């Protein structure tokens, strides 16, 4: 009996639209917009540029571009391209943030609302296994699919650029695929997955807890409880009694309860604390790329924040298991 595998399949059947189609379609839409932007740019250039059909960059024809560039220029161009691919990949992740948020919010609520929980409970499936299958879907399955979609989008972006280069008799191999390093970008995206899962744990735990606990309107509860707590804390200067500012509460409690499903949001938190990131002063695209390197992503694990948040997330998931067992569906 591989019950857990079937529970994961069940989540996928129910949420194929959010897990699979949403990031894929977003990537496709981004590529379509890129193509449209290139066509628009090209027609604008033809209307205004005296160069006519021959594309020139800094006065050099594109087909001869690589011949005139120094190795430093090629490297810089590669970094620029990599940054472009990285940006292309952000779209599926943006969708992922919303998909995971609303998936968790509904995961233990919808089954109570439509009473299908009684069907699942009529089968030999424990509450722990069921809740864990939802945690795993939110933190592993959906992000892995979104990452694959993101990598596909970034490669698609380079393919579109190659098509544009070919159109102008440039050689895409030397112009694009040589200087760019899409595999490194892909590797970095994939390497950031464990960081995402750990960092999103408190948000996922909180949303599952609300989902298992609330009798109605889980969205309002999920949003209003932390926001209202934040307002109270600000109002009564609670944090100042502890020698801290109310903004600490907003960032580290409210923010981590609600914003954890955004990929790379841990960077925002680290900029405040990590001296290396505090002095971040990008000299070029390569510095921005270094920020998203596997090495820098993984150094999130050296911060205590991620572990404290993960522990809080686990505690809230255990509470969600408890509520799934005891909530009466009347």
């Amino acid at each position, binding site marked *: 009996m591989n019950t857990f595998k079937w529970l994961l399949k069940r989540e996928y059947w129910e949420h194929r639209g959010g897990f699979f189609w949403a990031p894929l379609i977003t990537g496709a839409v981004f590529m379509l917009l890129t193509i449209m932007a290139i066509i628009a740019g090209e027609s604008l250039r033809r209307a205004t540029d005296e160069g006519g059909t021959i594309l020139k960059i800094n006065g050099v024809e594109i087909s001869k571009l690589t011949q005139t560039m120094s190795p430093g220029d090629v490297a810089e161009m590669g970094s620029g391209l990599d940054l472009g691919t990285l940006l292309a990949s952000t779209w599926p992740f943006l969708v992922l943030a919303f998909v995971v948020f609303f998936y968790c919010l509904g995961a233990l609520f919808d089954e109570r609302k439509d009473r*299908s929980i009684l069907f699942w*409970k*009529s*089968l*030999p*499936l424990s509450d722990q296994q069921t809740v864990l299958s939802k945690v795993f879907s939110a933190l592993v399955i959906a992000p892995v699919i979104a990452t694959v979609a993101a990598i596909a989008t970034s490669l698609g972006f380079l393919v579109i650029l190659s098509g544009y280069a070919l159109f102008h008799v440039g050689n895409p191999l030397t112009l694009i695929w040589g200087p760019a390093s899409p595999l490194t970008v892909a590797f970095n995206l994939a390497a950031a997955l464990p960081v995402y899962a750990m960092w999103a744990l408190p948000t996922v735990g909180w949303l599952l807890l609300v989902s298992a606990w609330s009798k109605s309107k889980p969205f309002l509860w999920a949003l209003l409880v932390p926001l209202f707590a934040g307002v109270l804390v600000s109002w009564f200067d609670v944090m100042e009694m502890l020698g801290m500012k109310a903004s600490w509460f907003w960032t580290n409690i409210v923010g981590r309860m609600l914003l954890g499903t955004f990929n790379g949001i841990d960077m925002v938190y680290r900029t405040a604390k990590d001296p290396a990131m505090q002095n971040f002063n990008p000299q070029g695209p390569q510095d921005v790329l270094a920020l998203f390197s596997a090495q820098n992503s993984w150094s999130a694990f050296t911060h205590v924040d991620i572990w404290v948040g993960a522990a809080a997330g686990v505690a809230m998931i255990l509470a969600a298991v408890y509520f799934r067992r005891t909530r009466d*569906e009347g």
Partner: protein
Amino acid sequence: MSAVISARNLSKRYGKTIAVDNVTFDIPAGRIVGLIGPNGSGKTTTLKAALGLVPFEGELKVLGRDPRTQRDELMQDVCFIADVAVLPRWLKVKDAVDFVAGVHPRFDRKKAEAYIANTKLSPDMRVKEMSKGMIVQLHLALVMAIDAKLLVLDEPTLGLDILYRKQFYQNLLEDYFDEQKTIVITTHQVEEIEHILTDLMFIRDGRIVLSATMDEVGERFTEVMVPADRADAARALKPVDERQVFGKAVMLFDGVPRSQLAEYGETRNPGIADLFVATMKGTYA
């Protein structure tokens, strides 16, 4: 014979309302028990307690296990249909069969598929595309293919037309039930299940007011058609209920020998519905 469900002083309250009030009963193996009661009488709560869906006070053992603490093991041997239309709307027929086959060790896939083949259900059909009757057919196909020791049916045919209802109980009796299994049914359509029941339990205001086998019910209760001129004499024997049909009094007697009653008029076994109405008189007053 050990009891499949054994309750001792079982109580359940919701706030100040007492849903189940200190009941004690045993359901032996190999029976089909009808748990009959008016709305809000506590029958669903009793079943939910037995299925480990709600906490309760008192002692309750299902197949020798405590449903509060041993629910996960218990569900290997117990199955239930809680209400109509609890199957999730997005579920496809083939996925439902695959899933139950994947998670239930006692599921017989061939049996479920054979049953589905006899309906209008197709493998790619989703629950949201089905009529109420078809949803119950799918649910029943899944449940009947599970070799459970105890099957609990809470209003399984609510909202179904008579064709589906008849077919439902026929399938249950012919293809599912055997002496190793126990079925507990609650329903308001008592007339439709009386011929399949072996035992009867009436519940009212959280208490069991009647618990007997169908044979015992037949021996205990007698209905007599009494002509008007003999009505007063018959009333002296204290019928538990009386109604008028075509100028004759139909009286229901509890525990009066049938031979004695025969002199007042034609005797017969009362229907469960009549017995129910007589027992529950004044419930909503």
